């Protein structure tokens, strides 16, 4: 399945979470979303949001200030 990409770089929390929330609304269950961000708070906030809403965080990569969080959209 192709992954979708969301550019949330240079946004400060909670905006990366809000953008993720908005992107997930338009994706089908099982879809993969890669969120690109730079706010270190996103490393905590996006996984917390995923746990609450039943989405699965597959991977978190950090290279310098660039952070990439990959998640699979849950069924509800």
């Amino acid at each position, binding site marked *: 399945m192709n992954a979708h990409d969301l550019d949330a770089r*240079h946004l*400060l*929390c*909670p*905006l990366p*979470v*809000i953008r993720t*929330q908005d992107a997930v609304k338009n994706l089908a269950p099982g879809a993969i979303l890669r969120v690109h961000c730079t*706010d*270190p*708070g996103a*490393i*905590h*906030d996006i996984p*917390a*949001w995923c*746990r*609450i*809403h039943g989405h699965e965080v597959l991977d978190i990569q950090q290279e310098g*200030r660039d952070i990439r969080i990959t998640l699979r959209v849950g069924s509800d």
Partner: protein
Amino acid sequence: MLAAKVIQEQGIHVEGINFYTGFCVEGHTHAIRRKDRARPKRNNALWVAEQLGIRLHIVDVIEEYKQVLTDPKHGYGANLNPCLDCKIFMVRKAYEWIREHGFDFIITGEVIGQRPKSQRADTLPVVAKESGAGDLLLRPLCAKNLPPTRPEREGWVDREKLYDFSGRTRKPQMALAARFGIRDYAQPAGGCCFLTDPQYSRKLADLWQARGTRAYELDDILLLKVGRHIRPAPHFKLIVGREEGENNFLEGYRKRFLHLRTRSHPGPLVLVDGTPGEADIELAARIAARYSQGRTAPEVEVEVVPREGEPRRLRVPPLPPHELPESWVI
């Protein structure tokens, strides 16, 4: 958190709504300053939702909130905090949200007498009325001090299991939290909104005055949270990074401003907002030098980068502290 828990205990499905205005203290601030990086990087609303096992919807109200801040019907508090208008706005948004999503009523954690402006006996009914939520707005922590709302009258909620808290003390809330086994919670007393901060409000008032309008964009209000703001004259202002984290944050804005950097010595990134003339730019360079590691040197080399055109370098003596009046620092 407590209000939600009280309602959950009655077997009622609760979901949370968190409104993001741009003025929230948590979030941004921990990401910017290096000294704050050791703090726990949790978003309190998400953390609370996770503790309660409820969903949380974070709603971006940045644009709509501008009207609340720039023209509050009920005025400001001690600073530029339009608390009552803010509360009415958020309950109105929550009311719209529950109608769109098929929920029955709204709960808030308000307590009569807890806050001097938005949580008084005479202002709680104003929030219910002007938000449009009316008697679908239930305050579980002080419901017994208020007339029964529709959720109570209809028996959706057992009024006897609600509370009668009042006043500024938080002891009853803390005791209830202990009864629920809740030991960790967000700082309970305000402090979560930059608009209640006198220094922040001063910077916002200065911005409005300098522009001759109360209009603002998100970037404007984010920049007010960062750096030293120094206004030597009405037509220009400097934003001076105080440390590496702030310099990194200001880097993202440098192309939108004339900016300066000390080159002969390590020093801050300085953004210049406004319409400075040549003498103003030289003064700005001297101020940049004053905050660099060359502050005691006879001369510091400063690079001046205009928004358009080629960078150039100036050699300037750092401005002595006594030549930088306190009245310039916003």
